[in-house]
């Protein structure tokens, strides 16, 4: 069945076809023959997640709408919703600033507001669709054990996606109006990162200050919170009631959310083109004369390469937001460190693996940018320096950033507990070196703008990097308590890294 060109349905088909092909390419890394393997892997993962869900929420299947349950569900819903707002802001910013087909669309004689309405709708759908696979195992387990009423949770996710997108568009457009298109890109990405992280971090900091642990549950179920919470009949609990199967609450939440999205579409769609055009003119940015750096200095090729990497990292808004996210997640351990100053070693044991894990993850991302995400590969490769020299300079640039971020925390930790600081330093260095090495072995030519999709190019590298960081964090955690016991997780982490080397393309090239 075909639809009339230029209509909303026609645009919707166009968008859904692009989205489907994009998703397929992402899952199969561009190789259609991998599709069957991908399907099997997804099936195995889904089954596994159902077991995890059974273990985690199975006992709550018969939950009733008492205040403690409503608080717990609302907190989970709020946490997920904040993450969805963060995701929707990312997508909205991309829709305004990525020019891939906007020139074609804006130059065409069609009513573009229809397309932009569809595009905003697609953002809402994508936001909900990203949450559904993660939530589905939990909802399915609750449906199986507690009855059909839990199916309302699916409706709630759709409502949350719609409301998150409506709000995200409102926030982005407000930023456009207040700070202009040039700054909006950076600020929107930072705001998205902060929103995504803020709730978890806020709860953890509150938990630490109140109870000295990193657990969120202890705060949510505390008498103080339950006493402050509104009555069980309040509209405030509608989302939680909708998840519990209250039909009226679900209809109410859906109606409000869809109304919010419809309002955003109605207000923004006709002006989307103006925003996109304004955003396209925001690419060039000047450095004011007073801040111009003294560009020409006596330097070596290695220093020039390091300096270039650091400058590019510093000036990349996406990276700034990602680094900020990593830094935000370090706030709870920092508070824990501050709180634990006089409390002995219990808190430090928790802190060490968090630092090691964060260092590994951050190093992996930075190493990809420095090693694979080289925007001028021909220039660097045609420079009169040996390739090994270039790689070394880039590794130094990555480790320099890691050192700059983690050194202050380790220094404070050293004042409180030199042993834990020593373990943390070793763990940070090893985890960062392992993640960097994995990126080095699996390096492939890409541009920095492909950072978001770096995981697609090599899932092996992604998994190896993640498991290596987890392994080294576990080893550091155990070493903080007992050095000899740490040998086992360290050997496991080493096995992951060695396995990555054996499976890497570099080994075959060598």
């Amino acid at each position, binding site marked *: 069945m075909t639809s009339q060109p230029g209509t909303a349905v026609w645009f919707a088909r166009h968008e859904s076809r692009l989205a489907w092909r994009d998703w397929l390419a992402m899952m199969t890394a561009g190789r259609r023959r991998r599709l069957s393997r991908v399907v099997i892997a997804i099936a195995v993962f889904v089954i596994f997640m159902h077991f995890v869900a059974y273990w985690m929420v199975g006992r709550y299947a018969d939950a009733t709408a008492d205040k403690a349950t409503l608080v717990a569900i609302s907190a989970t819903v709020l946490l997920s919703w904040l993450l969805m707002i963060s995701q929707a802001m990312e997508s909205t910013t991309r829709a305004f600033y990525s020019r891939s087909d906007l020139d074609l669309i804006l130059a065409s004689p069609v009513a573009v507001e229809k397309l932009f309405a569809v595009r905003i709708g697609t953002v809402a759908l994508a936001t909900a669709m990203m949450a559904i696979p993660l939530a589905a195992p939990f909802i399915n387990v609750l449906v199986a054990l507690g009855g059909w009423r839990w199916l309302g949770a699916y409706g709630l996710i759709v409502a949350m996606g719609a409301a998150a997108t409506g709000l995200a568009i409102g926030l982005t457009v407000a930023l456009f109006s207040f700070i202009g298109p040039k700054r909006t890109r950076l600020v929107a990405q930072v705001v998205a990162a902060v929103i995504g992280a803020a709730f978890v971090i806020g709860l953890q900091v509150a938990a630490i200050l109140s109870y000295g642990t990193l657990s969120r549950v202890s705060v949510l179920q505390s008498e103080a919170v339950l006493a402050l919470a509104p009555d069980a009949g309040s509209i405030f609990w509608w989302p939680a009631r909708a998840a519990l199967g209250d039909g009226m609450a679900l209809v109410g939440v859906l109606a409000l959310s869809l109304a919010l999205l419809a309002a955003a579409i109605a207000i923004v769609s006709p002006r989307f083109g103006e925003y996109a055009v304004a955003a396209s003119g925001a*690419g060039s*940015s000047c450095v004011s004369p007073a801040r111009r750096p003294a*560009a020409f200095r006596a330097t070596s090729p290695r220093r*020039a390469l390091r300096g270039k990497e650091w400058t590019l990292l510093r000036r990349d808004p996406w990276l700034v937001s990602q680094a900020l996210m990593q830094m935000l997640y370090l706030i709870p351990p920092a508070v824990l460190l501050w709180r634990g100053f006089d409390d002995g070693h219990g808190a430090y044991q928790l802190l060490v693996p968090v630092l090691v894990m964060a260092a590994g993850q951050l190093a992996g991302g930075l190493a990809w940018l420095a090693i694979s995400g080289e925007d001028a590969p021909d*220039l660097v*490769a*045609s420079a009169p320096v040996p390739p090994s020299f270039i790689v070394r300079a880039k590794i130094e640039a990555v480790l320099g950033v890691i050192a700059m971020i983690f050194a202050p925390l380790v220094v404070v930790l050293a004042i409180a507990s030199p042993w834990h600081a020593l373990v943390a330093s070793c763990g940070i260095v090893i985890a960062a070196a392992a993640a960097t090495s994995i990126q080095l072995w699996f390096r492939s030519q890409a541009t920095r703008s492909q950072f978001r999709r770096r995981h697609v190019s090599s899932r092996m590298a992604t998994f190896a990097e993640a498991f290596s960081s987890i392994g080294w964090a576990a080893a550091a955690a155990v070493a903080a308590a007992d050095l000899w016991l740490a040998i086992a997780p360290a050997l496991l982490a080493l096995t992951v890294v060695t396995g990555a080397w054996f499976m890497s393309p570099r080994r075959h090239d060598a």
Partner: protein
Amino acid sequence: MKHAMPPAQFALEIHGLVKRFDRPAVDGLDLNVRSGEFYALLGPNGAGKTTTLRLIVGLLRPDAGTIRVAKIDALADPVEAKRVMAWISDEPMIYDKLTPQEYLAFVAGLWGIDPAIAERRAAELLDWLDLVAHAHERCEGFSKGMRQKVALAGALIHEPRLIILDEPLTGLDAGSARQVKSVLRERVRAGGTVIMTTHILEVAERMADRIGVIAQGKLIAEGTLEELRLKAGKVTGVADSASLEDTFLALVAEQSAAA
């Protein structure tokens, strides 16, 4: 157009160069370019021009053959060979988040140029290429022409003896193209050597001292425009006054027929 070049040392000597991908991209290529010469390398799409240039610059390793750049064995000592060369591809690769001034400082750092000299040269190049007003703007908003000019400035800041360009004029407006051509001509006048691929045959006709025609990875004809016409005339009957376009098409057609 120059005719008889005075005997001079070669800026580039290639013998028996071979590079295979799925099929031979460069197939036993022999090529000599004299110092101080402007050499245009022509050929149909897929003839092996870009692969040849990337082999010279050290971005690809050949399967066989030798490459000498200003008497330096580029395969045995690539670092020394790279010191005297500059490479510009058709798609200028520069850093969006750096300003032209910072980009030039970075390139000067890579080539180990004295900062005082680099700063002076950067100022000259930015002025020459009309980039002074944009010297402190990040390159992310630049047009293709401006990006190509920044890349060209980067290539010239270390005063290379051999400049290798792959389709440098593609996508440039008339003004930018003229500036690039003028800069390249000036480099040759100052004793530098330029090797350039182009599909714009008038550029080759007007600027090149010698022209090489490459097809199926082999050099099928080489010389001044007159020498090429002569060869094409003998083989295919092209008139003595034929344009480079007619001459080029006749030579390529002859090679295709022979293959």
